[in-house]
């Protein structure tokens, strides 16, 4: 699905203090499954996610999504891709404070609003959020609930890829476990890319990509049945 070809990202390219976030990075990702991108702070893992999701354009290199180079798309085409094919979960939930739970889920949904509400409601119920909480604003929900609402928002258009940037960083262990379970289940059908520096949440990952200093350090693919590492680069 994704083919990242020799991608480099240099911030403040024209200044004296330019910093290299990615340096000639290449990688291929499968069509579905749970992919974890791990690395220390400042290693370039978030930058990689932003480039893959069209939120940033690399300084050099190409990113192919279903065979199409998405780095050369127009802003409008990128917006369309993000709206229809990608979903996002961030470290903070970034729910809109004046909207209630169900509105937050449906805010970027495509199609009939009533159908979206029904679909969003099903997602929320399946994530353990009850109907009575649908009318609550984010300030009345717990951190874990907010993050689950954010995941429902990311799933509302049934995207082919969900990008999750440190999705459990601001959660306690129990909530982190719930959030990861939801994402793992979605990974049975679609692709989930989780960026983290916390190795524990990638225990069930189908593929782990290690980044160090903007370069690919290691790729491990796991056999789902045996949970045995079957490849290492």
């Amino acid at each position: 699905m994704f083919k990242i070809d020799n991608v480099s990202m240099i911030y403040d390219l024209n200044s004296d203090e330019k910093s290299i976030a990615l340096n000639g990075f290449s990688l291929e990702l499968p069509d579905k499954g749970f992919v974890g991108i791990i690395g220390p702070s400042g290693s370039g893992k978030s930058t990689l996610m932003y480039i893959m999701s069209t939120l940033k354009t690399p300084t050099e290199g190409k990113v192919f999504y279903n065979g199409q180079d998405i780095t050369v798309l127009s802003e409008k085409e990128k917006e369309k891709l993000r709206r229809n094919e990608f979903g996002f979960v961030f470290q903070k939930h970034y729910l809109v404070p004046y909207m209630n739970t169900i509105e937050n889920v449906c805010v970027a949904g495509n199609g009939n609003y009533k159908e979206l509400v029904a679909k969003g409601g099903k997602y929320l119920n399946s994530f353990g959020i009850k109907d009575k909480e649908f009318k609550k604003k984010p300030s009345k929900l717990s951190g874990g609930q907010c993050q689950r609402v954010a995941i429902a928002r990311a799933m509302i258009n049934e995207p082919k890829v969900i990008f999750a940037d440190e999705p459990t960083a601001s959660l306690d262990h129990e909530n982190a476990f719930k959030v990861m379970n939801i994402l793992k289940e979605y990974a049975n059908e679609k692709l989930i890319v989780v960026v983290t520096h916390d190795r524990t949440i990638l225990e069930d990952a189908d593929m782990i990509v290690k980044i160090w200093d903007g370069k690919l350090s290691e790729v491990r693919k796991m056999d789902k049945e045996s949970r045995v590492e079957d490849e290492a680069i």
Partner: protein
Amino acid sequence: MKPFSALNYLKKNKNRTIIATLMIFISMSIIVIGNYVASVVGTFEKDATYSDNLVVINMQTTDENYKDFKSVLSDVKKDKNLSYVTSSPRGFSSLKRNTLLNITVGDASYAFKNRYDMKKVFDHLGIEADLSDVKNGSIVISENLAKLKGIKKGDVIDKSLDDNLEEEHSVDAIIKDDCYFAFYVYDNGDTGRIFVYSEKYEGKELYDYVANLVGDRDVLISSSIRESIKRNFNVFYYIFYGVVILVAIVLAITTGSVLTGHYLKRRYEFGIYNALGLGKKAIKKKVAGEILIMDGIAFIAGCVCVLMFTFLANELVYKQQGMYLGYISKTGILGFILCNALIVLPNIYFKGRKMSRVDVTQF
């Protein structure tokens, strides 16, 4: 209601909406100011209409034997397209009056030899009046001017009421008309002025026709006062539009900073919209929608307030004083549109542009 809609934000953030709407609402005061300016100028409209329909030919003081004047009068008499009345060459002033903006102004006046001549001209000008009591030394004024000066039919007025009056005049008729002219009856046996009117011509056509008839004979033809009113009152419009621009700049800055505060608090919201692919265009439309709806609310509320204020001001104050404040004027509307555009359009453009560029990766 769709969560992304502009109305949804405004509905759920009433306090912020009220504050921003109030800022825009203030711009509605421009309509009232414009109405004041237009009302002052508007009080001269009837005077101008009268002078459009009458050309006054005056003898020149240099025409010692009235030679030219008499020859012109003879030609006017012969001309089938023209009607006329003659009067004394002596001039009279109108009464001074205060306008809505408390500026003292004076209007024009006409003096006729007798009530029959006055009636002829009134009929031509469409002024209805009972002139049965009018005699030599009478003054005829409008109901508005009478209220403004605090006089009524039968009163004898002189310098003590108005500096412009050189002698006593009795108010022997009051006309129901919006003008502020003073019509005198005065006859000392001299003739030095001709009031020329026509069923066929009016305005510039009438003036040109009379001027052509007069040719190069040494008489003075008074043109319509419309141009001189424009000349004298243009300064009001310049001041008004200057005020509009000043008010607009001040309001644009204050409204802009209020809105900037609102949108700065919402950077996360717009950042996430961008990430979710809602699109720059949709975000700009949302911002524009929010500002325009607030503008619309301010406009409707403002219109209600302007109408109520004007109604109360007219009924309780101005009508009793013989004055009138218009409910709507081209000046007020134009001023408001200019002021509103200066406040709203830059905010729509800059806030929309800024919010559509919020980058979630920067948080």
